[in-house]
């Protein structure tokens, strides 16, 4: 029989306001096995933990039940506390009477009743707990960063600088991501490429960093410390070792002039050849052949690039290659894109080339962009006089099929930036910004926005635009309302810029599934704890960096990237990780070697062995299941598949769960 101590936490008033804590203590005191029961204001505090340690020593407790917040919150704390007092940490069970009781129920009597039942279930379970010992698994000292934007670059650099090897997998031909498309950055108006390109070069030259561009993660297996990842290196059709990046091939590609292949990097504002580098500062400076569009791949004729290449680097025969690498940790930095605007017909984005998105405007204002940095209308190449900015296009939408429910966070600031930059270059441009709210929390952010209004006289009008109507004369008629002045407005504009909502890169879903990392309804990756573990996924060994986790600007992305890197370094610095001792175990006497468990095991942790068993005095050799404890992750799939009940899961054994059911149904 166990000697169980029950500790009920008030959690200030979080629990005590709706659960009669004293009554719970009284009611569980006489449960089987309980020798001690007490309550305390904050069980997780130092004084609370002292109390537990003292009780363990004084009463010789062999099991603990803590009635407090969710075990996801403090199970670790209390296990460590038990260990300090010399008790096996797995002799602790937590009854969740905060998140699953006091916080959701209003009636005190009802909540108290439920708390008692939850406590009883935990007590019943502890009675059957057995001391468990954690195993050890080695850590592969190498990290993988998925995504080569500013988030991935910064994470990789920080990890590499700490002395660990890092691989970056980027699906585009070059690293740089969204930031490389930007012209200037707010609120300092730094030139984006001036601050990004040195980092890109550093990544390329860093001895600890291996770049896989034009590559995708194909398959992930394993677990924290021991991931095995298949990376597909798509055929570039150019030998990276021979290529000097001279650019002759792109310049001579016949499709450059007649091909009509929209440049992804320039958001379709200009065309690119079939053999191309996304932009001049691309890292690595090695072009790729777009096989879908290349004449040689379509018809077998042409071959101009191969003929022209001075270093004979073009290789039409190149094949996709799959490399398998082992990693200890994986960082997801897959970034974002803007939403598709097809559903916003009222803004005429698909009708008029002069209605553009903000990211297209970035390209139009970029000196390396399609217009050489000269702002002009895509329809007639004239400089726009009147420009209208529309905020929150697709952000803050309640209807899910149309837009996103969240605020995209960066649009207010980049719109102020755009307005100021345009006014700086062409002071006689009239700029009107239609906003719902202007949100500028951040260091020097509101000052920045006010500068747009006060110094540059940008006209900010509160009111969402209703409709944009392309006119026969080529201008755009914008119908809006000034809610503060109570006027409906119809104004002519030469150009309309839409602040389209951002969304996580659509590929993140696939990647999250491969990593078994959780993802929320908006496809943002979920963090292990919204406040206390913001850069970790609930799946151990998976870390989050940048927009993949939620909308954020560049400074925030860089700091999150650093934080993720620190977490990775903390993991890689260990030689061994403690493994979860809640693993499956086979009762060799019951096992009949049917292989059902091995078939359902997702980790291949079950093998079969011939062992000698003594069954009722009979010695015989049987084929029975063996669990490889280093591989078993404790999911329990085998336990419910086993027809003879031989498989059981330590810490969540059949008897333990059954007794919990009994306690609840008592």
């Amino acid at each position, binding site marked *: 029989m166990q000697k169980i101590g029950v500790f009920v936490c008030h959690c200030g008033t979080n629990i005590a306001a709706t659960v009669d804590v004293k009554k719970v203590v009284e009611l569980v005191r006489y449960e089987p096995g309980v020798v001690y029961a007490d309550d305390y204001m904050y069980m997780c505090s130092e004084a609370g933990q002292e109390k537990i340690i003292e009780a363990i020593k004084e009463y010789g407790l062999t099991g603990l039940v803590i009635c407090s917040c969710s075990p996801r919150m403090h199970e670790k704390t209390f296990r460590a506390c038990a260990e300090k007092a010399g008790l096996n940490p797995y002799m602790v069970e937590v009854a969740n009477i905060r998140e699953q009781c006091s916080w959701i129920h209003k009636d005190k009597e009802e909540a108290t009743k439920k708390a008692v039942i939850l406590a009883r279930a935990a007590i019943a379970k502890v009675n059957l707990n057995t001391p468990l010992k954690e195993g050890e698994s080695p850590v592969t000292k190498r990290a993988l960063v998925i995504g080569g934007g500013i988030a991935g670059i910064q994470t990789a650099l920080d990890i590499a600088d700490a002395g660990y090897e890092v691989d970056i997998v980027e699906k585009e031909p070059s690293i740089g991501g969204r930031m490389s498309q930007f012209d200037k950055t707010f609120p300092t108006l730094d030139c984006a490429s001036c601050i990004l390109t040195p980092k890109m070069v550093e990544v390329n030259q860093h001895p600890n960093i291996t770049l896989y561009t034009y590559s995708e993660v194909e398959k992930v297996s394993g677990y924290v410390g021991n991931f095995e990842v298949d990376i597909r290196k798509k055929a570039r059709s150019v030998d990276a070792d021979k290529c000097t990046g001279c650019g002759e091939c792109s310049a001579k590609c016949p499709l450059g002039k007649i091909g009509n292949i929209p440049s992804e990097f320039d958001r379709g504002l200009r065309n690119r050849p079939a053999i191309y580098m996304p932009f001049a500062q691309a890292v690595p400076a090695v072009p790729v052949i777009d096989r879908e569009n290349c004449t040689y791949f379509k018809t077998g004729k042409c071959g101009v690039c191969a003929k022209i290449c001075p270093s004979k680097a073009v290789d039409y025969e190149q094949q996709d290659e799959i490399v398998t690498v082992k990693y200890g940790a994986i960082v997801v930095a897959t970034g974002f894109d803007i939403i598709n605007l097809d559903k916003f017909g*009222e803004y005429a984005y698909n009708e008029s080339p002069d209605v553009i998105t903000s990211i297209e405007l970035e390209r139009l204002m970029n000196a390396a962009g399609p217009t050489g940095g000269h702002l002009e209308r895509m329809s007639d190449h004239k400089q726009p006089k009147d420009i209208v900015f529309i905020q*929150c296009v697709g952000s*803050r*939408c*309640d*209807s899910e099929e*149309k*837009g996103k429910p969240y605020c995209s966070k960066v649009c207010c600031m980049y719109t102020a930036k755009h307005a100021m930059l345009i006014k700086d270059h062409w002071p006689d441009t009239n700029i009107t910004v239609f906003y*719902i709210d202007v949100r500028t929390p951040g260091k020097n952010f509101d000052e920045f926005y006010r500068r747009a209004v006060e110094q540059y006289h940008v006209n900010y009008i*509160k*009111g*969402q*635009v*209703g*409709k944009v109507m392309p006119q026969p004369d080529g201008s755009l008629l914008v*119908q*809006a*309302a000034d*809610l503060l002045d*109570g006027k*409906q*407005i119809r104004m002519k504009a030469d150009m309309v810029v839409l602040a389209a909502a951002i969304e996580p890169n659509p590929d993140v879903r696939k990647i999250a599934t491969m990593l078994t990392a959780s993802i929320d309804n908006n496809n943002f990756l979920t963090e292990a704890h919204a406040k206390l573990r913001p850069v970790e996924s609930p799946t151990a060994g998976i870390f989050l960096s940048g927009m993949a986790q939620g909308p954020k600007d560049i400074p925030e992305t860089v700091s999150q990237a650093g934080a993720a890197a620190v977490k990775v370094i903390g993991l890689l610095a260990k030689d061994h990780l403690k493994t979860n001792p809640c693993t499956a175990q086979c009762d060799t006497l019951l096992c009949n070697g049917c292989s059902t468990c091995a078939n359902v095991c997702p980790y291949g942790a079950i093998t079969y062995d011939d062992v000698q068993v003594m069954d009722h005095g009979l010695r015989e050799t049987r084929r029975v299941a063996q669990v490889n404890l280093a591989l078993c992750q404790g999911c329990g799939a085998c336990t419910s598949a086993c027809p003879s009940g031989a498989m059981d899961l330590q810490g969540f054994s059949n008897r333990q769960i059954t007794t919990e059911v009994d306690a609840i149904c008592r």
Partner: protein
Amino acid sequence: MGFTNVESQVELIKEISGSDPYKCMKCGKCTASCPSYDEMDIKPHQFASYIIRGDIDELLESKAAFKCLACFACIERCPRDVQPGRLVDAARQLQERQRGGDYMQPEEVPELLAEDLPQQLLVSAFRRYRR
């Protein structure tokens, strides 16, 4: 109109219209889109607040309530699914119900038809007087 409390009245409007006035974030896209803007004394983006405040009488006494063409522009474009057009329609329906006049016989329809009557209005009227 003799409602005991604002909450139940809002609930009723919610039920009839199927949209929630509390979701309105005052973006003004409805007002920007409204073709009857000039005729309205209360603007579409204000409908939600009139209903939340319980000033339904005032809303119904306004010109706005009956100048709505039921063109559905605000319903189509509202990013919050508040749909001011439906709200004001629900308020009008509520008034009709108070009068006990929420029935319309099929034979009454032809005499209401006019050459220049927008079809949308007809559809909207059916919606209002159905049951």
